Each structure stands twice: as C-alpha cells, then as structure tokens.
C-alpha cells in the first residue's frame, strides 16, 4: 500500500487541515478588519479608549499578539498531534525498505 493510502497519512493531512484552515481564517478576518478600519474608519481609529492610546495602535498590537499566539499554538499542536503520526509513517517506510 502506498503511503498516501494509509490511515496514518490521511489522518495527518486531516489533522493539519483542522488546524491550518481555522487559523488562516482567524488571520484573514483579523487582519482584514484591521486593514478595512485603517482604510475606511479613520475617525474610529483615532479615538483613544485607554488614556491617549488610540484604537489604531491597540489593534496593531493585537495583530502582533495574534501572530505570536497562532505561531505558538501551531508549534505545540504540531509536536503533539502531527509529530507522532509522521514518526509512525517514517518507521513504516524504513520497515518497507528492509
């Protein structure tokens, strides 16, 4: 059986997709909202909800935090959920070769 037909490989592809697709959606919506507000809601972006700190800078900083959060979560997810599947596939492959 070719690797691409094994359950482990299918599970690997499905698991990765289960993380990547929602994460990309979060990225697209969050960044898209930021860009849309910066382009079309300038009066709102100038408002200062906390002291003299404006929405523009708060949202920009929230994007930095979002990037950190997605990267950190993905790295942990990969090590916990994807790495064991990849190890099993590698073991299977080297077993086949012998």
């Amino acid at each position: 059986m070719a690797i691409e037909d094994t359950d482990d490989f299918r599970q690997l592809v499905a698991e990765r997709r289960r993380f990547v697709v929602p994460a990309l959606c979060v990225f697209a919506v969050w960044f898209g909202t930021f860009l849309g507000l910066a382009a079309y809601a300038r009066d709102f972006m100038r408002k200062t909800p906390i002291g003299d700190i404006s929405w523009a800078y708060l949202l920009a900083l929230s994007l930095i935090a979002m990037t950190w959060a997605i990267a950190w979560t993905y790295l942990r997810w990969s090590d916990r959920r994807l790495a064991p599947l990849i190890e099993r596939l590698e073991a299977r492959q080297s077993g086949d070769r012998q």
Partner: protein
Amino acid sequence: VSALPVAAVRTLPIVIFAGILAITLGITYWASRRTTNATAFWSAGRSITAPQNGLAIAGDYMSAAAFLGVSGLIFLYGFDGYITGVAALVSFVPVLLLLAERLRNAGKFTMADMLAYRLNARPARTAAALGTICVVAFYLVAQMIAAGVLIEALAGISFPIAVILTGAVMLIYVIFGGMLATTWVQIVKAVFLLTSVAVLAVWVLGKVDFNPSQLMHRAAAASGEGNDYLGPGLFLTKPLDVVSTGLAFALGTAGLPHILMRFFTVPDARAARRSAGWAVLFIGVFYVLVMIVGLGSRALLGAGGEKLAGEGGNLAAPYLAQSLGGGAGSAGGDIFFAVISAAAFATILAVVAGLVIAASGAVAHDFWTSVVRRGEGDEQEEIRVARIAAVAIGVIAIGVALLAGKDFNIQFLVGLAFSVAASANFPSLLLAVTWRRFNTTGAVVGVIVGLVTSITLIILSPAVWSGPDSQGSPFPLSNPAIVSIPAGFIACILGTLLSPAEEDVFDELKVRSETGIGAEGGEPAAALG
C-alpha cells in the same frame, strides 16, 4: 560634529563601521574554509539551528527600510508608517502554516525546487528564476541606494563611494563564505540591531515614566496634528492604497526568495517551523520597539527634528539617539548616534548579502545547472557559476544604484519588490502545494502575468509616472497589489484549466512535503566542525 546630516566626515561612526567590517570579514574567513560543496554554499550545510535561523530570518526582515524607514514614517506621519510593519509581521502566518515545512521537505536549495518537484522542471525553474531575479533586483537596488544615502549622511562618506564599498563587502561575504557566512553575519547583526533598538526604546520610555499613554500624548501634541497623528490617513491618503499596500506586505513574504531560502539551512522540517516561530517572536518584539522609537522621536526631538530627520524621516532614529545621549557635541550623544548608525550600516550589509545569494541561486542552481546543463554539471561547477553570477548581479546593482542616484524614491522599490513577490511567486507556490490539477502552463503563465501586471501598474502609478499633469497618472494607486495579486492567481488558474492535465505526481509531492520522507538530509554537525 556638524548639526546637519551632510558632508563632514565623522570619525566615531567610521571607527565602529570598521569594527563591524572586521568582525564580519572574520566570520567570512571562518565560513570560507567550510564552504566546500553545494550544500554548504547554498544551505550552510543545513547546520543552522531553529533559534539561529529565526534570528537570521528576522535579520533579513529588519532591513534599513524596516528600522529607519518605518520609524521615520511614524515620526513624520504617525500611524500610517506603522501599517506596513504590522502587515509584514502577520505575513508569517501563511508562511508558517503553508510553506515553511513543505519547502524544507520537498526542496533542496531554492523555492523553484518545490515547483520542479511536480511540474515540468525546465519551464517551471525558468519562470521561478525569473520571478526571483526580479524581486531581488528591486529589493537590492533599493537597499544599495539606502546604503549610499545613509552612509553619506551618517559617516560623511560620499554616495558613490559608499555604494561601491557596500557592494564590494557584500560580494566578499557571498563569494567566499556562501550561505554560512551570510547567515552568521545576519545573526550577529540581528542581535546587535535588536539590542541597540531595545536600549533606544527603553530610554525613550524612561523619559515618559514608562507610561505608553504619555508617550502617545506627547507625540500627538508635538506633531501639531493632535489625535489625527494617532490614527491612519496622513500618509496613505487614499483608502484603497491602504488596502493595496497592506495586502502586498501581508502576502509578499510568502514569495520573497531570500526569506524562503533560509528554510533550507536547517536540518529538518521541525526546525523549519520552529525557526519561523522564533522569527515571529523576534520580529514582533522589533516592531513594538520601532513603534516606541518612532513615537519617541516625534515626542522628544521637538521643533528641530524634522530638519535633522531629513526627507522621508530616515534619520529620525539616529538623531533621537544623539538627543538622548546628551545632544550634538556631547560625548554621550556622539557615541549613541554612532552606535545606532553602525547598527543601520550592519543591517544593510547583511540584507544585501542575503539578496545576492538568493539571486545567484536562481541563476546557478535553477537556470544554469537544471535548464542549461540539464543536470549534467557537477557541484563545483554550480558553485563556480554561482560566484560568477554573484559578481555580475553585484556589479549591475552597484551600477543601477549609482545611475538612479540618491534622489530616487527607494520606498516604492521595496513596495514593488513585495508586490512582485506576492503577485508572481506566491500564487504558483501556494497552488503547487494545494491544487492537484495545477500544471506547468499555469505556473509559467501565472509568474509572467503577475510580474508584468505589477511592474506595468507601478510604471503607471503616481510615484513613477512623470508628466506635466501630476494629478493624472493612469493608475491611481501607489501599490499595485490589489490588482496584480488577483491577476497572478487568475492567470495560474486559467493557464492550468485551458491546458491539458499533466502526469499526476501530486501524491508524491504531498507525501514528501507533509512527512519529510525522502527529504534532503542535514549533514552531521561534525562535518562542519
């Protein structure tokens, strides 16, 4: 020391510049003795660890434009200057989730390797090499001009000499030390730059009682624009320009060859994704610091600031350092000014070297070895061609930078590099790993359409289009990405659907890119000493 950023040779910056040259040339000498085969030359022998590669990627990102340019634009126009920085950071989300591991698993030395894996290799490599060379050309010329302008202003060395010196040093790194030297120069510079900017930012915060609200308040008050300074609209006045520029930076990274090439320098896919994670951490910290420096220069430099910062505000950060150190003429001011200037100088040297090695990879590995020689040449020949290509690229870049001159607008060249990367390279890379039907015709047509659309629209844009009627450029936006990225994708898709399907090797690529089975291995660390 002259109060104006012109002429007058400054001794202290030159002494520190010389120190940086000595350290980086020492690294190059060390690396040259280990650069014996193609894997060493292109991928530093796959010997770079994840945190080291994260620093190197961050170093490629923290160019002079990102440090002096973004802080200068914040100084001049407030928040609009910050949008490109934030967009450039978030662009690592698609790079990490879609490309980093797959590139490392399926490729060897360049981004074209991944296309060649499943497509007809010669046309696919030719197209990818073309995309790479165009992106690098715009980026490189922009950085060379920036180098000349900055070194002239900061050290008092004239523009042509500064450009030639920068070009010569960059070629020494690449030709003798290959990717190993380029990477370690980048790492050393990244640490030096991050440290210097951190000191500058903490010092600024000390002046406002570590209260960010007070920093914003003082910056807004000093700007004369009030709260308008804290929001968008003072620089990118057209709303669509904000969207277009944001898209170019958010998707362009995924097509920047000198960044993607770094994922081949680590031992395996796990190290590739972890290095993207480290890069995100460092770049995020960097942009928080740059925000503080930009706002701080507005809040603290006062009325004389705009003259010192020069056109484009590029010198706001060094003059902020001078002011914090005790002002012009004081020992502290001179030293801090020189240190920040030297950090900017080191940044330019390291970034241009990374660009040259990416372009020589496209010429030697993709075009010469695979297309011209059809894989018949040996590794030593490939390295020889790479060195010749590097010299040719370097000489051309020096020539173009000298011809274009220092009055050329460098900001739009960087924006063009990002929009070409996002429009020509990103669509075919993304579709190659996600779409089974994708074929060679689609990739070639996509690269060409993305390239032609973005370059044509830039020529027709207000920044370049010269005519008697300044309000009437044929294309109204300063960045073409909002049109050229969709054009690149549509061309890829139409080209594919209108041409016959190819032999389906998507499963093979998928297995290798997802699992790393069969991927190019790392060399044992011992082989590199």
